[in-house]
Structures are given as structure tokens and as C-alpha cells.
């Protein structure tokens, strides 16, 4: 770690370093692109995975914090780039260094109005194109009336190019070539798993380009959280990826507890991990069912839903809800386990292997299913990292990106489970990885179900919770990939900035890349195998 710090300091004398656990490098904007290349390519850094870009408004300056990880050394650093211009803030784009940055930068542009020089597609990402102002800026006061007109849309996008003399020029670029046959798949479409829209240019049955259009379920959770106390922020986690509600709750709780220095009881840790793994099985069950339905095998949905229902019954008994559990809280969990929790989990563990066997028998070996999935939507390991495709989809491309292993949290280091990876990188691999992950989750549950220690399920937490001044970034493993939580606190009861880095945004971002040249039916196969959840990407 120190080694590469010295190297960077030598190469970029302007850079300043701070922080202990995660080093934060501050760099002037002009040097940022060079630093990015150095960080990615240098032998001692190899920061090839851009976790997220946190847009920030510190009132005196605007800027971004880039969190980077190395897939080889498993190190994480932050890079801070700022600008003082509030009228026309500009930073250099790193969209050519990490491909996922293109999407992340669009998000920052949408919320903070920071223009990224060199980004090929500087449109708003979530808000409509006639939205006034940039909502996550602290001085945002514009009133946006609800439009009664049809939504305006444009086939043009902007890109900003730096001329040799230092001036920046705006250029309009067409998204699709003239005369292309563009089909709107979504926003209301059975296979987009939510309100997502693919503007698909096709040539016959072949896909030429996809323009992902999101934001239909954007609720501004990050903005809302800035006006809520920390415990009040928690219920939003249920409403992002509603199939990994427990995992997301867990993530935010860890971040807040780390910042506040709260130590929770072991019983609470075990309960949290068990709930995480139960929701992972439930989520993967739903994935298998809906995925098979997307491919036309409707019956599988009913088979997998039976297991999912059983898990939801377990959760209902303890949490009182089947969907928005709101179970993890700061200091532990909301209430103690239901009396027959252990019995129910054991019953589940008993039927699960039989069911998985049945799924494999009816679907995985089917020749039509094989033809539909094998070799379809190939994603190489390099692309998976560059597009930040985490979770089972990333692991299917042989990228060991399980945050439970890479950045162990809670009691995961003590548990015996395997990180499931595959080398094929196609839709079939993504399907099989999830299948096997269910078995691994069951293994974790089997280890814990008889070892739930006695103790309090929730420690005493101050009624008014204030975090010290500082910033914290935590990554946990949701059901669909790495879920990052960034908290910046100014010492008050409310977060100054709460950035949620969901796994599904990059998943949707990679669709265009892997569907090029394949058939319309493959779009459904690929989209289904990536398993994105729209409320998660839109927030």
C-alpha cells in the first residue's frame, strides 16, 4: 500500500494523501485523467474496478469522490477531484479508463450539473430532459412543476470536447444513425423487470445498438435522506432492491454503526447474516423463476415460487412483513426471532436440495434452454470489471467479486462457504452461478441455525444519533452485487450526503455492450440473466 503511495506521490507531486483505512488522494482536475490511467495500469496499483463516483457539493466547491478497487490486490482507495466553478463546473471524464464511468458521470451530471469533458454521452440519466436545476446541490431551490405535457425526448446527446487551446466545445451527437429501425422495448414491457426502457435499433432480428433509458422510478432517495435522521433513512433500503432488502439494511446499518462506533451483539450479527442469506435464496429463487418465464418456460416460476413463499413465511413470522421488512436497525435488529424460526429454517434446508435438483432436471439440462443460454451474452472478465458488473453476473465471468470475501463484514470471515465463480461468462454461467449460490447460502444457514447465541438482539443506542464529522464508505454484498454506502457527516443528526451505490445500475449499463449483434430474443435472455432491479438503479 505504502509502496504505491510513494510511487504516485513521485509521479504526481500535486497529489495529497489522507485517511488511514482507505487512502484518499486529492488531485487537481487537470492531472486527474493521467492519474486515473496510472492507477489503472501501474503494476503496483491495478485499480481496475471503479466502485462508484460520489458527486459532492461542499458549498464552496463541487466535486467527485471516486472509489476504486483493485481486482488483483483487493485494495481500495478514494480519489477526490474538485472544482470551484459553480456556474459551469467541469471535470475531466474517465469514461475511457473505466467503461462504467460513462454512466456514473451521467448520474453526477444529472444531480450536480458537473460537466465531464470527453464523456461521449452527457445527457441527464434519471430526470427528464427539461428538468430545471440540479437537485443534489445544496443551493437547489428551483420549483419543477409536474408537467401535464407528454415527456419530451431527444434523439441527440451532447458531448464536450477539449480543444488544443484549452477551450471546451459542446457538440451534438445523434444517438442512432439516421434511418435505423428503433423499437421501444419498455417502459411497460413484461421482460424489463420493472419500468425500464430500451430503445433498441434493430436490423431485422439483429440488435445494432441499445440506448438504456432509466429514471421512471426515480424517487430521489439520496436527496430525501439529507433531510432525515439516520434511523429514518433505513426504511428506504427496503425500497431499492426489494429482493435484497435485508442485505441493504445491513449495509447501511454497518456504515452508520462504524461511524458511530456502536458494537452490536453477536446474536444480532448472526440474525442479520441469516436473514441476508435467506433473502439471497429467496431472491435467486425468484430470479430462476422469472428468468425461465422470460425464456418461455412458465411452469418453472411456480416451482421456484413455492420455495420463495416458504422463505417469506419465515420472514413474515419474524419481521411481520413479506416484502418491506425494515428489520435491521441501528444497534441490532428490530425484534427478536419468532419462536419457531429455527424449526422453519431447518425445514427449508431439508427441502431446498431436492428442489434445486428438480430445477436442474426440468430446466438446466433441457436442450432448448441450453441452446438459448449457452454462448449468449458473453461478457469477458476484463469487461465485467471495467463495466463494474458485480455479483453473480460478475462471478460468472470469473471475477471473484464477492464482497463477503473481499471486504469481510459481520461474521462472514468465520463462516465456511465457497465463492462461486464460473469461467464461461455467458447467460448459462450466470444462471448456474446463482443456482450454486443458493447451495452455498444454504450451507451458511446450516452452520448458523443451531448456533444462534443468546443475548440481546439490539444494543442501546442514543435516542438522538449524531455521527462525528467525517466520511465512510462501506461495501456489502447484496443479492445482485456489491452495494456501496457512502456517508458524509457534518456532525449533525442528518447525513450531509448519503450516496447509495447500487449494483443494478452497472448491470443495466452493460446491456448495450453485450447485446450488440445478437437477436432480439437474446436481449431478453441477457437482460434476464443479468437480473437487474429497476427501483435499485433508479433509487
Amino acid at each position, binding site marked *: 500500500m505504502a509502496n504505491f503511495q510513494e510511487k504516485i506521490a513521485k509521479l504526481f507531486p500535486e497529489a495529497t494523501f489522507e485517511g488511514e483505512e482507505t487512502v484518499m488522494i486529492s488531485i487537481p482536475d487537470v492531472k486527474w485523467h493521467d492519474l486515473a490511467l496510472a492507477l489503472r495500469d501501474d503494476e503496483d496499483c491495478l485499480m481496475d474496478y471503479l466502485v462508484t463516483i460520489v458527486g459532492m457539493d461542499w458549498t464552496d466547491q463541487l466535486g467527485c469522490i471516486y472509489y476504486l478497487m483493485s481486482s488483483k490486490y483487493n485494495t481500495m482507495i478514494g480519489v477526490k477531484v474538485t472544482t470551484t466553478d459553480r456556474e459551469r463546473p467541469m471535470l475531466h471524464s474517465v469514461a475511457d479508463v473505466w467503461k462504467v464511468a460513462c454512466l456514473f458521470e451521467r448520474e453526477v451530471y444529472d444531480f450536480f450539473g458537473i460537466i465531464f469533458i470527453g464523456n461521449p454521452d452527457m445527457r441527464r440519466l434519471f430526470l427528464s430532459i427539461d428538468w430545471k436545476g440540479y437537485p443534489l446541490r445544496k443551493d437547489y431551490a428551483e420549483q419543477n412543476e409536474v408537467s401535464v405535457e407528454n415527456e419530451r425526448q431527444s434523439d441527440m446527446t451532447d458531448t464536450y470536447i477539449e480543444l488544443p487551446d484549452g477551450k471546451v466545445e459542446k457538440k451534438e451527437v445523434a444517438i442512432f444513425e439516421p434511418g435505423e*429501425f428503433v*423499437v*421501444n422495448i419498455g417502459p411497460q*414491457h*413484461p*421482460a424489463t423487470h420493472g419500468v425500464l426502457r430500451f430503445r433498441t435499433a*434493430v436490423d431485422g*432480428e439483429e440488435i445494432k445498438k441499445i440506448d438504456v433509458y432509466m429514471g421512471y422510478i426515480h424517487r430521489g432517495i439520496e436527496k430525501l435522506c439529507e433531510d432525515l435522521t439516520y434511523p429514518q433513512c433505513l426504511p428506504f433500503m427496503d425500497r431499492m432492491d426489494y429482493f435484497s432488502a435485508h442485505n441493504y439494511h445491513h449495509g447501511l446499518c454497518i456504515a452508520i454503526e462504524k461511524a458511530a462506533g456502536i458494537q452490536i451483539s453477536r446474536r444480532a450479527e448472526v440474525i442479520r447474516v441469516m436473514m441476508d442469506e435467506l433473502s439471497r435464496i429467496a431472491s435467486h429463487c425468484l430470479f430462476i423463476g422469472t428468468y*425461465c*418465464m*422470460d*425464456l*418461455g*418456460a*412458465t*411452469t418453472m416460476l*411456480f*416451482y421456484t415460487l*413455492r420455495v420463495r413463499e416458504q422463505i417469506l413465511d419465515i420472514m413474515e413470522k419474524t419481521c411481520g412483513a413479506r416484502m418491506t421488512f425494515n428489520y435491521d436497525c441501528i444497534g441490532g435488529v428490530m425484534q427478536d426471532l419468532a419462536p419457531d424460526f429455527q424449526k422453519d429454517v431447518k425445514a427449508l434446508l431439508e427441502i431446498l436440495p431436492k428442489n434445486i435438483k428438480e430445477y436442474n432436471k*426440468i*430446466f438446466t439440462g*433441457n436442450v*432448448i*434452454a441450453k*441452446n*438459448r443460454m449457452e454462448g449468449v451474452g458473453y461478457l469477458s472478465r476484463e469487461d465485467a470489471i471495467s463495466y463494474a458488473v458485480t455479483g453473480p453476473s460478475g462471478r460468472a465471468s470469473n471475477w471473484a467479486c464477492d464482497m463477503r470475501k473481499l471486504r469481510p463484514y459481520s461474521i462472514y470471515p468465520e463462516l465456511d462457504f465457497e465463492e462461486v465463480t464460473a469461467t464461461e461468462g455467458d447467460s448459462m454461467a450466470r444462471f448456474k452461478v446463482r443456482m450454486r449460490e443458493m447451495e452455498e447460502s444454504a450451507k451458511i444457514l446450516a452452520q448458523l441455525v443451531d448456533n444462534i447465541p443468546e443475548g440481546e438482539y439490539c444494543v442501546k443506542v442514543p435516542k438522538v444519533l449524531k455521527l462525528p464529522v467525517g466520511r465512510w464508505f462501506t461495501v456489502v454484498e447484496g443479492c445482485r452485487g456489491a452495494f456501496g454506502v457512502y456517508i458524509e457527516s457534518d456532525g449533525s443528526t442528518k447525513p450531509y450526503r448519503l450516496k447509495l451505490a447500487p449494483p443494478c445500475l452497472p448491470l443495466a449499463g452493460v446491456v448495450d455492450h453485450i447485446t450488440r449483434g445478437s*437477436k*432480439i*430474443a*437474446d*436481449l*431478453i435472455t441477457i437482460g434476464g440473466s443479468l437480473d437487474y432491479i429497476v427501483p435499485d438503479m433508479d433509487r
Partner: protein
Amino acid sequence: MQDFSTITDAIHSFLLSFLPGWLTTTVECVLIGVGLLLVYALLALFYIYYERKVCAAFQCRIGPNRVGPWGLLQSFADMFKILIKELIHLNHIDKFLFALAPYLVIIASMLAFAVLPWGNGLQIIDFNIGIFFLVAVSSIGVLGILLAGWSSNNKFTLIGALRSGAQMVSYELSIGLSVLTMVCLAGTMSVGGIVEEQSDLWFIFKGHIPALIAFVIYMIAGTAETNRGPFDLPEAESELTAGYHTEYSGIHFGFFYLAEYLNLFIVAGVASLLFLGGWMPLHIPGWDTFNHIMDYIPSVVWFIGKAIVLSFVIIWFKWTFPRLRIDQLLSLEWKYLLPINLFNLVLMVCIIVFGWHF
């Protein structure tokens, strides 16, 4: 064996006793038309109920069970609902073709009913190229689907229609060739003749290996021909919402829906005609008592029973297999089924020439 021609002849002579010849024919045509419509509607209702129950059984559900005993009246309720639904008026479409398309589809399946061997002496028209007529009229349906997709002025329907066109035209070949294989064995194209030929033994046993191959190919191609899963690409709901009939509403949509179920019956019916003897009871040479007992079961029951059993297989396909992709669908036809079929035809001819069949 009960012969329905005695009844039809009685009606004919009864009408002729007080009506001139031309009027008799007209009245008979009207009667047959009304009867056909009734059978058509009832069969469709039965099939909807049947498929829902079968599918429910596969999916560990109960299926419709609220309306009437065992949910039997559910499809009647659905029919009345679809009859009173609004026909949504669309702008920017080719109104004439849009309205014409569902009728083309439904007429195609109705015409096919004319030559089906419903029972002993219970066939609307039996002429020497019956099976050829059947293949011809069933391919009118694709015209309706193409028109529906094109006239709706919608990209999804257009893709659905083009897929359907490619699929139907391809699989017509397989159907035609496997029908031809069996016609070779029968030595006649008349539907009545084909049934009569099977009075000692059904063709699937008589023609053994090539007949079995032709049967399997016919079932696959027939499933594709009816646009049912795993070949339901033209209306692949997860890709094209509802494919070519996305823009249709009310009874116009109902016509497509009806035609789909009736095509299922027709495909199963033709399969039972060509391979399982049509209305002919199961006869085994030498087992005279057995054959005699089998004759007591009415021929209509034989025919409809066979068709329903075969439809069960097709429904089974649909609720088990995932959907194929368009290129896989076409390569299955052109690279596998068609060559096998051609080889099979030669094999059948050899077997007939050398008299190796039973």
C-alpha cells in the same frame, strides 16, 4: 358400428319430400353452417378450460374452480366477457385490413373443419383431394397473421408477423411432407379413403418405422404451425408483448384466441386421421372379439378422444419447454426436420414397394 349416414340421409330425404332440390341444398348448408359454428364455439370453450386445467396440474395449482361445478362455466363466463368488451378504435392503421385479418384467421380454421372425419358417415364433405384441401386452407391463416401484424402499424406486431410468416412457411413443408408420406401409404388423398384404409390396423402400426418418424415430425411441425410453445415466437410475450395481435381488442382478439385453440384441435385431429385412424376404432388383426367390443364405442368419441389425447401432448410441450429463438427455430426445420422428412418419404416408398408394411 353405428353409421351416421343413415341419419343424414333421413334428414336429406325428409327435406326433399316437401322442398325443391336447390332449396334442400341451401337449407342443409345453413344447418351444417349453424352446427359447425356451434361445435366450433363449444370446442373452443372446452379447449380453453382443458388447457387451463392441464396447465394448472403441471404447475401444482387447481386451476379454475369457482364458476360452476369444478369451474366448468369459467370459459363461458370468459366468452361473455370478451363478447361485451369494447373494440378499441385505433388511428393510423389500415382499417380495412385490420378488420379483415381476424376473419381470415378464423375462416382458415373453420374451412379445415369441413374435411375432418368426425365419425362414421359424419363428414361434411368428402372429396378425392380432401387432405390436400386441408393443407391448403390451413395455410390461409398465415395470411391473416401477416395482415394483422402489418396493418396494426406497430413495430412489435410487425416483427411478430414477420416471424410468424417465416415460421409458418417453413413448417408447412414439414407438415406437407409428413402428410405426403402417409398419403403414400394410404394410396388415396380422400379423407374417407384414408380412414377406410385403416380399418384393419392404424397407420402408425401399419407403417411402423417411417410412420413413427412422420408422426413425431408432424407433431413438432404441427405445434409450430399453431404458434404454440415452444414455438410461440410470433406472440412471445416476454419479447414482443403479444406479437401480431397486440393491437387487437374485444372479440377481434377473441377470434385470434379461438383460432389458436381450434388450430390445436385441427392439428391433433389431422394427426389422429393420418396416424391413429381418424374415427376408426382400434382394430387388431385376428382379435375379432376385441375388435367387436371396440366397435361399440361411437366413432365420434373415438375421433374427439384421440384429438384430445394428442392435444394433451401439445399442451404438455408448451408448459414444459422454454421458447426457441427464431434462428434456432428455422435451423431446426431446414437443417433437421426437412432432410429427415425427405429421407423418410423415400423410406416409406421403399417399404410400400417391397410390401414390408403390415
